[in-house]
């Protein structure tokens, strides 16, 4: 069921892309609906600034819109879009120097899944701050892996690097997070 659902979603996305390439604005709006939240979320984690993330998301989607005819049907649209966004983020970082917002500590009740996997509110806050403090490249790669489910190959496409480097960045990010969280997780161990 999951596999057929996935292929149905891909087929739907292909249809939107095809129609948008022919001038169908509603089809492009569907792509915006589909990707905005994920793109914004990733950009928020990169910028730590809500309005910057919103501006960048909009910027990336506009750029994707403008060069849609260059997108190769059948290739990974998400990686293509996120690459555009990442380049926009890098460009913006060069010219702007916005003040970063502190990591929001108002973490709501967490339920990650099976009870034995859930972590405490304190650990969650610690995790959030640790992610916030990761070097940008590591953070970008890690989030593409765990939030977007991209393969290392696709992460490399987005970040315009090699697959080996993408894997290494995710490795370093996890290593850092685990070292920060270890004391807290030790305390919470049953």
């Amino acid at each position, binding site marked *: 069921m999951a596999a057929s659902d996935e292929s149905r979603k891909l087929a739907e996305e292909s249809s939107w892309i095809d129609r948008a390439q*022919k*001038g*169908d*604005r*509603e089809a*492009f*709006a569907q792509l*915006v*609906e589909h990707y*905005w*939240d994920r793109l*914004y*979320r990733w950009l*928020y*984690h990169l910028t730590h600034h*809500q309005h910057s*993330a*919103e*501006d960048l*998301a*909009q*910027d990336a*989607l*506009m*750029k994707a*819109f*403008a*060069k849609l*005819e*260059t997108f190769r049907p059948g290739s990974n649209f998400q990686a293509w879009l996120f690459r555009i966004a990442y380049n*926009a983020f890098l460009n913006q970082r060069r*010219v*702007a120097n916005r003040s970063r917002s502190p990591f*929001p500590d*108002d*973490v*709501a009740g*967490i339920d*990650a899944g099976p009870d034995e*996997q859930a*972590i405490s509110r304190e650990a*969650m806050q610690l*995790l*959030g701050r640790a*992610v916030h403090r990761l070097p940008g490249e590591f953070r970008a790669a*890690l*989030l593409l*892996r*765990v*939030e977007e489910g991209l393969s*290392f190959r696709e992460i490399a496409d987005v970040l315009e690097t090699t697959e080996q480097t993408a*894997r290494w960045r*995710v*490795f370093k990010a*996890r*290593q850092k*997070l*685990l070292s920060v*969280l270890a004391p807290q*997780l030790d305390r919470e161990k049953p």
Partner: protein
Amino acid sequence: MNCHTAQRRLLSLADATRVPASLRAHLIDCPTCQEWQRRVIQVDRHIPLLPVPPSTFAKARFLREVRTKPSLWRRAQDGLVQVVGQFRQRQNWQMTAAGLAAAAAVLFVVVHLTGPNPGMVVNPSRRNQPDPLLASLVQRSTALAEVRQPDRQAEILGHMAEDLRGQTERLAHSADTRSSQEVLARWYGKVVGEEVKRAQEVPAAERGRVLAPLALQLAQAAGEADQLADEISAGRTNDPLRSISRIARKAKRELDTLRDQRATLELRVPLLAPRLMAAGLVFAAAEPGPSAAEQALRFQRNERLIQSVVDGSLLLASESDPVKRADVCKQIAKVFAEEIQRAAVDHEGPRAAELSGYFSTVLERGVAFNLQSAGEKVPLVSMQNGPLLEIGAQVAQIAQPLEAELRRDGDPRTQTYLKQALTSVENGERQVREVLKDRAKEVRLHADPEKK
């Protein structure tokens, strides 16, 4: 394998829940590494739960602009020239000085390299490119065919008006396109007029919510039309643009009266301006879009189709009887069928394929949808089925000769397109037939009871 290696491998896996056999063999016997694996999984699973401020408003605003601003589409597709012209006029943008200086330098180069030549002969490859205006208007029209609520109708008509205004503005850079601009401005007036009529039907309690964005859209339309007219006038007047501006202002005043507000004509400069700039910058690296002259030729080629869609839309907005609405859509489809036929005979495969797509959409969303709607109130065996079945028969009369033409063996270069066109036409006709099949069967049975 030792624990150090195992733990490093776990950190570098794509998914720590899926471990290779060699690593699994170590984990089975190592509680320390099992705990390590558990923590890696925990961290991966909790990161997506980290809170992020919502961006609901920004998303909604952007979606609204994507859906309602043909200028967005146009500017992104046409490249920099219009964007530069409009950007100079904008008052409310947020780019930093450093970014502006860098962008200006690039713009200078790009404008000189890629500026359009209004006198350019039509590029043959562009002749076959889909017409975004026609595509958008067909979408609007079929959306109107599916709704009867005045608030939705007013909104769709507002979008349609914006499509027409956008096209007028695209043509405005070339004086040779004056007659086309005038036609478009006339249609704009009709559509906005109908939009106001629909707005009058909106219940009073909902007017504030429904009419405010429409009024804003009209205010922006008036401002942008005037702005562009000022930019390109160079001593001559641009009547179509001024006419659009007057129509938009008048309509806005009428909507304000309906809302019982005394709003001034405040122009909200879209915050999208720097993004349009960025989009234009990106597009500048690609091939420039069609010139005003090419667009005018494309408009003239499709003028009859566009007129049928616009006129049909006005009827759809004012007609509530689904049978009559189905008939209106059938008439639109008929005009498309004639053009598809012409394209097939002239071996214009891409054009036949493009128009067949619209034909199918009109039949499915316009005719079939309304026949289905009408049929919900009519029993399977009823005299009232007559008009429904008559429309079905007329659709078949339109589609079948067209299908025969598309099946004809012809130029191998256009075969693929004609097959695609045939598929679209057959699909549209099938949608209508499906809706009526039970009724048609009942009529046949009653005509010949021995067949029961």
